[in-house]
């Protein structure tokens, strides 16, 4: 009670001082002033589980604190934990296959006919970000931010800034933003030498001989990667119910983009694996994206539709279609459907395997994530508005990736097995806002 009185007094003083500067502020409701200095907290816990593969749990918290009408601090903390198996890039074979773990300590074996999955992954990531928004005047708004993310083998540090200008009675907003990110990769076991052969314990008589061979495939120290992003966006109110957003983004990445844990099988003409080679990707990538979205306020809900086209100089291009439709079952309860379709064209150096009698290319990766692929998501969300402006929501989604052959002829025994298996995942999430 005491607290409420103090806040009301603070609000009254704030309103009085505002009225000295701007007489029109007298119309402002006292409660609005108190409310504008409040904290807003959004928190969620999410489970992501792939069938027989990666399992991840993620906790996310976002805190917003406004300072008067012109400043807003936004802070986010994400902690996630990942475990399970991930496709190594090797092909399925008619006999079991044994691989050296990325650390060089130990091996794992994959049964005949199965897609090789590396089950080594256990990692915890912590990400922190802070953004400051300042309304400079009725037309201009400035955003600046910092973010950092760390996990066992990866560190990412970034800066971003953006400027927004509103026109046309605030019906048109043009935003220009940029970011710089510096990533450091400290691969477990060291970064593999590009396209070097995986040393296998069974090929060596002694542990020392194997270790020496393994070390020959590794480079000492860390490597890094720099990303510069620029984005130009326009948000336009169309009429009383609809708005549109259009963004153009360009991103230049330079540095280490190889996945140090991915390999390619090198096979003979019968499709039988001779050896495994560590992948190698180019050190420069220039990406462009165009994103358009329409969002509409309906009497009983909200709907949005978006399309994104993305292309880059690795020749990966993609089309993404997405929609959310929310329907209010009552003033305080809503149900929402989420649909997403994604289609991707492979990178020019993607190859599901290498042929032993052909010369090695400069770059090669069998990572299905940069191969031809379609994917879709179907999701359902229920939300409940509680008293005091709190909201509780539940989300359940199904995500399926269907990797496809990029036109490579599957020689010999390779055609007997599913070399491009679907990846099926469930996302379950509970969120609370107050």
């Amino acid at each position, binding site marked *: 009670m005491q607290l409420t009185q103090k806040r009301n007094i603070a609000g009254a003083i704030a309103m009085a001082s505002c009225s000295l500067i701007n007489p029109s502020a007298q119309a402002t409701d006292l409660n609005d002033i108190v409310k504008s200095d409040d904290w807003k907290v959004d928190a969620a816990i999410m489970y992501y589980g792939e069938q027989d593969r990666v399992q991840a749990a993620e906790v996310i918290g976002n805190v917003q604190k406004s300072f008067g009408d012109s400043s807003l601090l936004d802070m986010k903390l994400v902690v996630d934990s990942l475990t399970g198996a991930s496709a190594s890039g090797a092909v399925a074979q008619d006999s079991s296959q044994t691989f050296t773990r990325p650390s060089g300590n130990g091996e794992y074996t994959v049964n005949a006919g199965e897609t090789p999955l590396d089950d080594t992954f256990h990692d915890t990531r912590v990400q922190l970000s802070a953004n400051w928004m300042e309304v400079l005047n009725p037309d201009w708004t400035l955003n600046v931010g910092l973010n950092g993310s760390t996990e066992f083998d990866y560190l*990412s540090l970034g800066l971003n800034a953006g400027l927004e200008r509103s026109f046309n009675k605030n019906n048109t907003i043009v935003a220009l933003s940029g970011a710089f990110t510096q990533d450091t990769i400290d691969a477990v076991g060291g970064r593999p030498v590009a396209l070097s052969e995986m040393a296998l314990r069974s090929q060596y008589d002694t542990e020392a001989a194997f270790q020496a061979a393994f070390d020959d495939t590794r480079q000492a120290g860390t490597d890094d990667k720099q990303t510069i992003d620029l984005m130009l966006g326009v948000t336009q*109110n169309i009429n009383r119910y609809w*708005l549109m957003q259009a963004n153009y983004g360009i991103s230049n990445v330079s540095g280490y983009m190889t996945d140090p844990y991915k390999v390619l099988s090198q096979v003979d003409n019968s499709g039988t694996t001779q050896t495994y080679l560590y992948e190698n990707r180019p050190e420069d990538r220039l990406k462009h994206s165009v994103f358009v979205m329409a969002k509409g306020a309906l009497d009983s809900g909200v709907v949005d539709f978006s399309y994104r086209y993305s292309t880059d100089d690795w020749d990966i291009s993609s089309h993404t279609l997405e929609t959310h439709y929310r329907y209010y079952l009552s003033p305080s309860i809503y149900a929402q459907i989420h649909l997403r379709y994604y289609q*991707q064209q492979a990178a020019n150096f993607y190859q599901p395997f290498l042929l032993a009698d052909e010369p090695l290319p400069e770059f090669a990766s069998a990572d299905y994530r940069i191969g031809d692929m379609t*994917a879709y998501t179907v999701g359902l*969300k229920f939300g409940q508005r509680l008293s005091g402006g709190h909201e509780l929501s539940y989300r359940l989604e199904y995500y399926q990736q269907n990797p496809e052959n990029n036109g490579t002829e599957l020689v010999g025994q390779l055609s007997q097995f599913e070399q491009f298996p679907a990846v099926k995942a469930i996302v379950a999430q509970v969120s609370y806002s107050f």
Partner: protein
Amino acid sequence: MKNNLIRFNIKAGLAIVILTGLSACSTLGVEPWEKDQLARADMALDSEKLDMALDDHIYFSKEGTSGGRSLAGGGCGCN
């Protein structure tokens, strides 16, 4: 010479498209007192920012392209 002409035509075409777009924008929109629906909390572009952040992280980790809606940045060594 021909190339210069083509370049000039492309630039002129782009300028016309942009100017037409901007002048079209100035006729779109509503008066300040008609913004009740657009001002609804569920109409904010970041009304589900946690869902979007979580989705972006999943798709960033599992697909070859990312971003578009907002700045993509660097990120993580995701598997």
